[in-house]
């Protein structure tokens, strides 16, 4: 699904990674490891075309765009959870019903918060609104930058099963995480930094 060849990148004179080549196929997980500042976020942004100063080539065999989740919450403080999610998913697909939105919000444990403005939510809740996209979008490629951070313990378990489901239906998953991750499938690891 994704082929990366001879990818290298440096940011202000510090070489982050060099001549990186890997592939990710249907149903595979790639965990990008590395300490703080190793270049995980940079790599993921490159894969999604959000950062362009690199050598080498990245190509997706994919019809739809990958789902990207970054460090920033990506939700509007002035919109309610429902409105945010409707908008966020609407960017990719036009066939999502309000009922599905509600269901997704419940699945990320925001039952009762559907109409609360995201500005009035806690750190983790805001992140959950953004994560709820994963239950709705049928893109086969997920690129998630520290999806587990700020999420509580049940939340993490929840998310892992969601990822398992995604892999089971043949999706590909590229993510970073500083916490241990337990998935049903074997986890391919890519270590950045020395």
């Amino acid at each position, binding site marked *: 699904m994704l082929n990366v060849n001879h990818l290298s990148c440096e940011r202000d004179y510090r070489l982050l990674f060099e001549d990186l080549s890997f592939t990710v196929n249907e149903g595979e997980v790639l965990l990008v490891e590395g300490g703080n500042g190793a270049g995980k976020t940079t790599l993921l942004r490159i894969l999604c075309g959000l950062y362009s100063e690199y050598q080498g080539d990245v190509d997706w065999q994919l019809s739809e765009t990958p789902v990207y989740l970054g460090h920033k919450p990506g939700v509007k*403080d002035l919109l309610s959870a429902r409105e945010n999610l409707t*908008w966020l998913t609407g*960017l990719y697909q036009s066939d999502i019903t309000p009922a599905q939105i509600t269901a997704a919000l419940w699945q990320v444990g925001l039952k009762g918060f559907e109409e609360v403005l995201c500005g009035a939510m806690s750190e983790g809740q805001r992140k959950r609104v953004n994560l709820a996209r994963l239950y709705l979008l049928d893109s086969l490629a997920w690129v998630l930058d520290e999806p587990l951070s700020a999420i509580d313990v049940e939340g993490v378990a929840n998310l892992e099963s969601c990822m398992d489901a995604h892999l089971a239906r043949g999706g590909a998953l590229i993510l970073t995480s500083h916490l241990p991750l337990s998935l049903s499938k074997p986890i391919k690891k890519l270590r950045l930094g020395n």
Partner: protein
Amino acid sequence: MRLFLAVLRRELLIAYRNSADLLNPLIFFVIVISLFPLGVSPSGPILSQIAPGVIWVAALLATLLSMDSLFRSDYDDGSLELMTFSREPLVLLVLGKIVSHWLVTGVPLAVLSPVLALMLFLNFEGAWALFLSLLLGTPILSLLGAIGASLTVGLRKGGLLIAVLILPLYVPVLILATAMVQAGAQAVDYTGHMLWLGAILAASMGFAPIAASAGVRISLSR
């Protein structure tokens, strides 16, 4: 197209949510204008002479400064990067944001302007011409302003950098429009001015959204 409407709805919803934001450009407009009699002189002849210029400059500033937040908040909370992935071209989204900005700022300004014109002792014909000029001019302001907004988003520079970038581009509009109003005030025919403004509007319609979406991509890859 569906998406274009979605953007429009979202933007208007947000604007409605902080309705203060809706009114601010308007109030700003009024206050700035009423500073001039205080700063210059309250006498009718002088004021009616400078009225078109003052009102138009105020409109320029009101649009431009409200413009600054066009992409800012989307950038801050990361929803701007998500937009670049959308299933439809980014240009459409940008255009949606611009149109909604015009609806929320430009139109009210135009509607209110005659009152202010009268407060500055402009005659009715002048006030009417002013209204028309603003109706034709403000969309241009929003379009051009969007370019600046797209380029400055992400640099935390307050509303001033964008003003510095874009105000020079506004000069032709300003000159045309004020000339038009003065013509109107002296009951001279001003269809020529309107045609020119229309032409500029059409042109900027064409390229501004493209430039703005390019600007957005540039700001994001940093």
